[in-house]
């Protein structure tokens, strides 16, 4: 490790912008971005499953609030949602004195809440579509086996809906990665935040933003590759048979 660092330092010796220090900024930014995106996606995914099931409920008092939630969160810009939660939390009177402030002082938490709510709304609609497109025959077969609606949901509908939702969910993951750049607006030092810092420090927009664009591109390709691989494995039974 030590020798690697010295090697890197000599490699970067005559580079005025990409010094070890700025690279460590980008490194820290990468960590923040990945944490933010990963956490919000996981929590959003967990929340989306019951929401998607509830969205198809027969009871109006379950169905309509969920519909209103997804409609509003999918119909307004994420930036507004972030501002609403970020400023909304900061400007609550007396919040600075309570224990909550210890958690909410860091802009990471409001950003995480906003991103989670946003991705949960999109994911709910993706699952909803996948659940709705379950073929009638599968459900009838489950009924014929004497499964209760609850068991049918758990054993038949959800597993196959998950698989059908996979391509759309892959898009949502990439969308979330790109949307996370907004976090830099509320002073979070994510990848874009690091690029803005380097830009402001050296007044070198091309270097700062092209470098970060390349990192995002690599991350996007990694996600694409991962989902393509997953699809190949999980959706193998839907592929056209050859040979």
């Amino acid at each position: 490790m030590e020798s690697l660092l010295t090697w890197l330092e000599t490699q970067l010796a005559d580079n005025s912008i990409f010094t070890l220090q700025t690279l460590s900024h980008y490194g820290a930014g990468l960590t923040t971005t990945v944490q933010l995106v990963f956490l919000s996606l996981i929590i959003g995914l967990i929340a989306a499953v019951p929401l998607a099931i509830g969205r198809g409920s027969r009871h109006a008092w379950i169905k309509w609030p969920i519909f209103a939630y997804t409609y509003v969160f999918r119909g307004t810009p994420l930036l507004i949602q972030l501002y609403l939660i970020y400023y909304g939390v900061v400007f609550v009177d007396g919040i600075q004195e309570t224990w909550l402030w210890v958690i909410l002082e860091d802009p990471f938490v409001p950003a995480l809440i906003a991103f989670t709510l946003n991705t949960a709304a999109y994911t709910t609609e993706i699952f909803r579509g996948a659940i709705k497109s379950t073929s009638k025959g599968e459900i009838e077969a489950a009924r014929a086996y004497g499964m209760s609606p609850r068991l049918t949901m758990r054993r038949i509908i959800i597993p196959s809906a998950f698989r059908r939702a996979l391509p759309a969910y892959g898009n949502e993951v990439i969308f979330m990665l790109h949307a996370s750049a907004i976090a830099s607006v509320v002073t979070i030092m994510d990848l874009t935040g690091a690029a803005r810092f380097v830009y402001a420090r050296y007044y070198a927009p091309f270097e700062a933003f092209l470098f970060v664009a390349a990192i995002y591109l690599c991350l996007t390709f990694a996600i694409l590759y991962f989902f393509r691989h997953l699809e190949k494995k999980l959706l193998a039974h839907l592929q056209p048979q050859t040979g």
Partner: protein
Amino acid sequence: MLDLHGYGPRLLEGAGVTLQLALLSLLLAVVLGLITASAKMSRNWFAHRIATLYTTVIRGVPDLVLMMLLFFGGQIGVNMITDWLYYQFDIDIFININEFIAGVVTIGLIFGAYMGETFRGAFMAVDNGQIEAGKAYGMSNSLVFRRVRFPQMMRHALPGLSNNWMVLLKTTALVSVIGLSDMVRVASEASKATREPFTFMIVVAIIYLLIASVSEWLFARLQKRYNIGYGEAD
């Protein structure tokens, strides 16, 4: 009742900026999308490569990063060109890239890539026999495009187009970050000044939802028009 602390007119002005920005970028995106789609379908190897590179790179990088690159870098790039012109040819011009133009160009560029994919799929969905029939009637290539390919392509492209427009509309909020006074920026300034973020952000959210609902209705009407002769939309 709703108290906007005198920010009402400015908020409305900001909404106007948002709408103008969205419509102009849509126009640019549609033009770029048509060019990209034809480049991707052309037999020219070079055009195909360039178009693929464009759509891949644009769709792999966050909008905000592209916007900052174009806004912060664009001015330096333009200055370099004008400086060079001045030293070489003694042409003294100054081009100032303002936030509005940077916003329109960036959003247009980004959604041009998405539109390209939408249009390509739609063009390919038009039956080849239709084009051959047009040619058999003695129509020129451009006439075939205008009377046969374009109207039929639109029928297939409209759902994707409407989707892209909805995403584009929400993307316009990002221009507030590079300093353009759209309604998001006005609302965020007002929130800080009055310490009432809920009032302003919710008003802006409602305006966005309103624009989205109106455009949904317009697209439904357009779809109906382009579906003439095909019965009910499937």
